[in-house]
C-alpha cells in the first residue's frame, strides 16, 4: 500500500545474504503457574500496597497540613493517653509475628502450625479492632467537634476498615489452609495475604506516631 523508503526485499534472502540468524527463545523447565512467592499475583499485591500507602500518606498530609496552619489549641487532647493505644500497637505487631509464623508453617508443611499462626493472628487482629472501639469511646471528642476530631476519626476509621479486610483475608487463608490447599510451592495466596497484613500493621505505626507521639513533640499544640 505504501512504498517503503527502506526498500522491500525478500527478508529471508536478505538475511541469508547478510549472514543474519534468527533468534528463538527455547526456554527449558519453566515453572507452570506461580511457584513459591514468584507469580504475577505478588506484583498485583505490590501495586495494591503502593496505592493504599499513597492513600494513608494523603491522610497524614491532611493532618500535618491542617495542624501546621491551625492556631494554638488545635489538639483537643494535647497529651493523648497511651493507656490503650500503646498496648494495642504491641498487640498488632505481635499479630504480624504470628502471621509470619503461620507462613513458615506452610513452608515447612506443618499444617497445624500454620493454622495456629493464622488463627492467633486473626484473634489478635480482632482484639485490636475491639480495643480500638473502646479507644474511640474514651476519646473526649466526637467526629463533628473540629477538624482535628474529624481527621482523627477518618484516619483511624479507614485503618480499621483495612484491618477488617485483613481479618477477612486471614479467615480465608485459615480456611484454605484447613482444606489443605497449599504446599511450599503453591502458596502465593498465603504469602499475598500475609504481606497485606504486615502492610496494615506498618501503616498503623505511622498513624500511631502521628496521632499519639507527635503531640508530645509539640506538633499542633
Amino acid at each position, binding site marked *: *500500500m*505504501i512504498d*517503503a*523508503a*527502506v*526498500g*522491500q*526485499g525478500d*527478508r529471508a534472502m536478505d*538475511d541469508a545474504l547478510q549472514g*543474519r*540468524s*534468527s*533468534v*528463538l*527463545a527455547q*526456554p*527449558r*523447565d*519453566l*515453572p*507452570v*503457574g*506461580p511457584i513459591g512467592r514468584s507469580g*504475577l499475583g505478588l*506484583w*498485583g499485591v505490590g*501495586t*495494591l500496597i*503502593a*496505592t493504599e500507602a*499513597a*492513600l494513608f500518606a*494523603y*491522610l497524614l*498530609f*491532611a493532618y500535618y*497540613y*491542617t495542624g501546621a496552619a*491551625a492556631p494554638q489549641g*488545635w489538639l483537643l487532647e494535647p497529651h493523648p493517653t497511651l493507656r490503650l493505644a500503646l498496648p494495642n500497637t504491641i498487640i498488632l505487631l505481635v499479630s504480624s509475628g504470628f502471621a509470619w509464623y503461620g507462613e513458615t508453617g506452610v513452608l515447612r508443611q506443618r499444617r497445624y502450625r500454620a493454622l495456629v499462626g493464622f488463627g492467633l493472628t486473626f484473634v489478635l487482629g480482632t482484639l485490636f479492632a475491639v480495643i480500638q472501639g473502646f479507644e474511640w469511646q474514651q476519646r473526649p471528642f466526637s*467526629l*463533628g*467537634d*473540629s*477538624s*482535628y*476530631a*474529624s*481527621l482523627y476519626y*477518618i484516619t483511624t476509621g479507614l485503618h480499621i476498615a483495612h484491618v477488617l479486610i485483613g481479618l*477477612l483475608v486471614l479467615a*480465608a487463608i485459615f480456611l484454605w489452609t484447613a482444606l*489443605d*490447599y*497449599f504446599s511450599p*510451592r*503453591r502458596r*502465593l*495466596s498465603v504469602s499475598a495475604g500475609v504481606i497485606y497484613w504486615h502492610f496494615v500493621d506498618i501503616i498503623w505505626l505511622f498513624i500511631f506516631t502521628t496521632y499519639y507521639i507527635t503531640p508530645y513533640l509539640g506538633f499542633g499544640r
Partner: protein
Amino acid sequence: MRAADFRSPAIGPHSLEHEARLARLWETSPGLKGFLGTVDHKQIGIRYIVTAFIFLALGGIEALLMRLQLAGPNLSLLTPEQYNELFSTHGMTMIFLYAAPILSGFSNYLWPLLLGSRDMAFPRLNALSYWIYLASGIFLYVGFLTGNGPNDGWFNYVPYAARDYNPGLNEDFYSLGMVFLGISTTVGAANFIVTALRARAPGLSLNRLPILVWGTLTASAANLVVVPAVSLAFFMLWLDRQFGTHFFDPAGGGQPLLWQHLFWIFGHPWVYAIVLPAMGMVSQGLPVFCRRPLVGYGSVALSTVATMVLGFGVWVHHMFATGLPGLGLSFFSGASIAIVFPSAVAVFAWLATIWLGRPVITTAFLYFSSMILMFVIGGVSGFMTASVPVDWQLTDTYFVVAHIHYVLIGINVFPVLGAVYYWFPKMTGRMMDERLGRWNFWLTLIGFNLAFLPMHLTGLLGMPRRIYTYPEGMGWDSLNMITTIGSFVLAAGVLLFIFNVLKSLRSGAVADTNPWDAPTLEWSVPSPPPPYNFAVIPTVASRYPLWEGRLGGTGAVSSLDRGMLLESGKETIATSSMDAMPEMIVEMPHDTSAPFVLTIGTALLFIGLLVKTWTLAALGLILLAAAILAWLWPRRELREREARS
C-alpha cells in the same frame, strides 16, 4: 520435581490445527454469558473505546448548548443554574469519562498485541476496570439527568461545594461517583504496570518497548499513587456534607485550601496521564507514515518519564492566586517552567522524524502531525501561566479555558482520531475511508482552531470563565460568536468522523495483516486478530521486528513464525522485567462473571451511601465481598493450589 510444576514449552511453527485448538481455548463463549464474562482484552478495549466516544459525544452536546448561550451578550437560553450544571458536567465528562478511558481503551486493545502476549497480566481485573468505569459513568449521569449534576466546576472547590451553599444531591452524586470511578482507574493502572513489566514476548527488553507503552506505563504509575488523593478528597467532602465533619470548613478549624491541594496533587499528574499515552500514540504512528523509525527513541522515552516526575511537583501552579507564601510560588513556578524541557524533546523528535523521513500523507498522518502544532500552542500558553505574575493576570479567564482545550483536544482528541484511522484496520479488518477522512480532518482542525484560538484573546480582554452570560460592549461579542461558529464546525467534523466509522465498518476496503507496512508486532497478526493474538509466542530481536533487514542493522532477526506453542491450556508467557527472559508459563483465567457481580455489588454500595439506605449499602458490600472471595478462591487450573486428589 513433579512434571506438572515445570515444563519445557514445545517449540514449533503454527499450523491450522494448532490455531484451531488455541481458538477453542481462548474464544469468548457466545451469548449473554460471554458478554458479561469475557476477559478478552480486545473486546474490553473496544468497549472502552466505544463507551468513551459516547461520553465524548455527550460532553460535546453539553458544550454546544453552552456555546449557543454564549453566542451573543445577554442571551437567556439557559438559566444560571442550568449553565453551572452544564459546564461542570461537561468538564467531568470530558476529563474523567472520556479523556482517560479512551486511552485505556486503546492501550487495553493494543498492549498485548504490541508486546507479543496473549492477554494482559490480569484479564479479570481488566474486565473489572471496564465494568466499574461503565457503572460509575452511569451513576454520575443519573445525577445529571435527574437535575443533580455537579454544579461547581470539575475541580469542585469548597466552600461552594459544601452543604450550606449546595444543599441538593448534586455534589453527593459527584463525590461518590468520583470515588467509584477511582476504583476503575486504579485497578486499570495496576494491570498496565504489571503487564508492561512482566507479560512481554521473550527478547522484548525494556529498551525495545514500543513507545506507546512508555506513555501508558508512565501514566499508570502516576495514577496508582495520585488517584487516592482525589478519592480521599471527595470522600472527605461527602463526610463534610453528610456527617458534619470539618475537613474543609474553617468554622470548625478546617482548611478550604486542603481541598485544592488534594485535588491538584491528583489533578496535575492526571493532566499528564491523559496526554502522555496520546503522545505515545503519535510517537508510535507518526514514524510509520514517515517511513522511518522515530528519531530519538531513548530521549523520547526518558522525557516521557521525566515529564511525569516533574509533574508531581507542579500542582500549586493551579493555586497561584490563593495567597500562598512567595517562596512556595517560586518553587512551583520554576518546576512548571522546567517541564518545558522534556516536553520539547518530544516535539523536536517528531519534527525531526518528519524532516528526515518521507512522509506519506494519510488522514492519520494529518492528525498526528497537526497535533504537534496544537501541542506547541497549548504548551506555550501553559508555559505563560507557569509564571506567577502572568498567571495572576490570566487566572480564571477564558485564556485558561483556551489553554486547557488546546491541551486536551490538541494532545488527546487529535491523536485519538489519528489512532482510530491508524488502528481501525487492525481492529475491524477494514480500512477507513480516506476521502471522508480528509473532510473530517479539515473540518475538525479548522473548527477547533476557529473556536479556541480567538478564545485566548477573549481571556486577555478579561472575560472570566464560567459566567453564564455577559453584557454588551465589553469587546467580547464578536469573539464569542466566532468561538460558537467554530465549535459547531468542530462538531460537524466529529459527526463526519462517526459517519465514516459506521460506513467503513460496513463497506470499507478489506485490510490485510499490515496495510501500512508498519514495524511493530500488532501488524504481524491477522486483522482483526484471533482471540489468542499470537499462534506462537514471538521472539523479538529488535525494536522494529517487521522492518528488520531494511534498517541496515547488524542484529539478529526476530522469530515470528516459530516459537513456543503453549497449547495445553489457556497459557501465555511471563518474562523478566528488564531483559524479557522467559520466566514462567502463566495459566490465564477463563471467562468469569465475578468482575460483573463485583461491579453490581459496588454500585449497590454507592447507591446505598448516596440515599443513606444502609441496608442497601450492606447488601452491596456483602455481594462485593462474595464476588472477591469467589474470584480469589485458589484454583487448580490456575495452579494456585496443590493438585491433591
